[in-house]
């Protein structure tokens, strides 16, 4: 009699194979279970396994631009995974031998690359050089944290084949005028990165500022804020118009304030490298979703 597999874990990652990116969902089991994949409706992938459930079946919120979330439905001798998709992509299924046995579902991330390919994006890490910006209660500086997040944004956007232009190097502190000179006529979007700071150290959370000159930029900022907050679980401080960004004219522009660095907890979040990665990916995904509305 065949051994009944027990499901122990599942998770999602973005993987790179050569130039191609994939969103993956991996399901781990104590033995190879029979698997059926179908697509009951657009934007939905259903994976059914003959197995018992040892792991917690709560949902997994992914939001990586291709996969939105996975919910798990335990049944009689079987378990169904419902994968909600942001794009019309199909899964490639692989079984990886071992204990645990791994069922790996790979979804191409080409829709993100197709959207961003050759678009010019300006990345503007705030402050720099001798201007450290706000300082956290322990020791972190806004200048350095903005730089970290900016590096992650560049990594994500270049992975999507965008053309990225920096407004400053690691040790520089150009004026706002000098930063604006980096903007070219074909600039698709300007992304400035800062942290919030306040004398009231109880203030926490994420805000996104926007260029009020461009119609729709408030909605863009709201989308970016929604995605970041969903990804990093910070309180939302809202969106607001920014006079500096207004000097971009008709170029879409946002200014990220991922946390209030003057708060103990928020400063601690900045120490986690995954925090910067999540903010960067959430921003890139939100920008694409905003500009593809109605398509």
């Amino acid at each position: 009699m065949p051994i009944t597999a027990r499901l122990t874990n599942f998770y999602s990652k973005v993987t790179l194979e050569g130039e191609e990116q994939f969103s993956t969902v991996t399901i781990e089991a104590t033995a190879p279970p029979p698997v059926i994949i179908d697509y009951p409706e657009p934007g939905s992938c259903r994976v059914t396994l003959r197995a018992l459930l040892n792991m917690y079946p709560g949902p997994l919120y992914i939001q990586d631009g291709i996969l939105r979330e996975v919910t798990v439905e335990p049944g009689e001798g079987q378990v169904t995974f419902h994968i909600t998709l942001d794009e019309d992509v199909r899964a490639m299924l692989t079984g990886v031998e071992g204990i645990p046995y791994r069922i790996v579902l790979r979804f191409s991330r080409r829709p993100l690359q197709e959207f961003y390919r050759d678009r010019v994006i300006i990345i503007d890490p705030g402050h720099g050089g001798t201007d450290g910006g706000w300082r956290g209660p322990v020791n972190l500086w806004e200048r350095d944290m903005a730089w970290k997040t900016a590096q992650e944004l560049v990594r994500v956007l270049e992975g999507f084949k965008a053309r990225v232009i920096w407004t400053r190097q690691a040790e520089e502190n150009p004026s706002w005028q000098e930063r604006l000179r980096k903007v070219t006529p074909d600039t698709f979007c300007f992304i400035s990165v800062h942290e919030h700071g306040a004398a009231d150290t109880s203030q926490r959370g994420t805000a996104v500022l926007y260029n009020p000159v461009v119609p729709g930029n408030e909605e863009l900022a709201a989308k970016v804020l929604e995605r970041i907050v969903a990804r990093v679980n910070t309180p939302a401080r809202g969106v607001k118009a920014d006079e500096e960004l207004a000097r971009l004219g008709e170029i879409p522009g946002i200014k990220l304030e991922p946390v209030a660095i003057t708060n103990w907890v928020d400063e601690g979040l900045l120490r986690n490298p995954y925090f910067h990665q999540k903010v960067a990916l959430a921003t890139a995904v939100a920008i694409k979703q905003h500009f593809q509305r109605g398509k």
Partner: protein
Amino acid sequence: MARKDKKIFFYKIPIRTHIVTENDDIVDLAQKYSAGIAAPGDVICLAESVVAITQGRAILPEAVRPGWLARFLSRFPGKDGSLATPPAMQLAIEEAGPARILAGCAAAALGRLIKKKGLFYIVAGRELALIDDIAGTMYPYERHIVMGPKNPGQLVQAIKKATGAEAVIADVNDKKCVDILGITDKSYRQAVIEALKDNPFGNEDEQTPIVILKRWKTRL
């Protein structure tokens, strides 16, 4: 003839759990999530922070009133360490007592002179190294200071009694450091350390504070 040490090898099976709270019982959790998988000879490993959370040792900094000593001493530890905020230092003082903390500080100062790290924890108490400061633990505990677990030795024995498998409570990080706080069979110690070095508990979004080590080979 000298007896060779046993070499034990394990498969690693991380188990996804719900978000554990102080309303959970750690023995029940181990039993529930390892059912049908862990057998005698296997090892159920638990992340120390989760054990501490079930013991109500996740503390909001607002609930702590740092004294002048805590505010002063929190300026000195490494800023990426666990006692860099006044509330965490205050909890360390309450845990170890001011005398041990001050002796630890003196040892740490000496350590700086002779370029030797870790003397603070050797003198003040290794349990202080288990404190996770604000934002040192995953959501929804990132606002908490999480202390080390109490009585890990007794807990692993209770888990073994309930499940039949060996049990371990460990502090593991992404720098390949494994600190075994409680273990039911000491002959497994080195093999467990090797198995946990790559941190199968995870340090990102993984919800896998239980890892079952399945024995697959014994060499004598």
